[in-house]
């Protein structure tokens, strides 16, 4: 289950969605806003999400993770809107019978989310003009 949120992520609440007596392992990844990127000082950022497609694509990623690693459940949330340094941008929780598949699936889900979800990030810098990450003319070539 994956959703997009305009308000801060409540990790305690999300963890409670992953209580299952068959599960011996719970692994989570918390992506946070850091204060620098490629040598520039970042002061805050915006996430913009095409929510309809993002939720659909994330559901596919979760199904792939279940198929590949035999895990029990995944819960994920990605923020949209304005975020400050230290805010949680994305949270992925995975439960499985054992820790190996839980770690592998969590890594798989966050990696695929980064590459496949229609989510864009605009960084605001201390010393230069804000920009959409990966969207410069020379990027992606």
């Amino acid at each position, binding site marked *: 289950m994956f959703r997009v949120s305009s308000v801060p992520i409540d990790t305690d609440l999300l963890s409670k969605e992953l209580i299952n007596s068959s599960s011996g392992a719970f692994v989570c990844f918390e*992506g946070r806003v850091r204060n620098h990127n490629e040598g520039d000082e970042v002061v805050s950022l915006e*996430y*913009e*999400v*095409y929510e*309809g*497609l*993002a939720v*659909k*694509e994330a559901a596919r990623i979760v199904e792939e993770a279940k198929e590949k690693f035999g895990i029990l459940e995944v819960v994920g949330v*990605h923020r949209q809107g304005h975020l400050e340094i230290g805010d949680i*941008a*994305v949270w992925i929780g995975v439960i499985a019978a054992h820790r190996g598949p839980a770690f592998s699936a969590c890594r798989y889900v*966050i990696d695929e*989310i*980064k*590459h*496949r*979800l*229609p*989510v*864009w*990030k*605009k960084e605001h810098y201390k010393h230069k003009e804000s920009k*959409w*990450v*990966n*969207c*410069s*003319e020379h*990027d*992606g*070539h």
Partner: protein
Amino acid sequence: MKESKRLNIHYYALLREKTGKTEENIESFAATPLELYKDLAKQYGFPLDFRSIRVSVNEEFQSMDTALCSGDRVIFIPPVAGG
């Protein structure tokens, strides 16, 4: 002969800023998203090459060469940066 189609286009991120719009309805002779993107890039001065763009048609990823139909909802997806 090409037929004109009525398309609903939504813009996100850099493309939203370049157009100054979140969406618009247009009449277009573009047969594919690739043709449509090239038309819009010229009109609005999109800085991104079509090779770095993906497209969603009716809320599903599609090829840039897929056939467009009247009534389609088209969203061009610049390089993503989630997580």
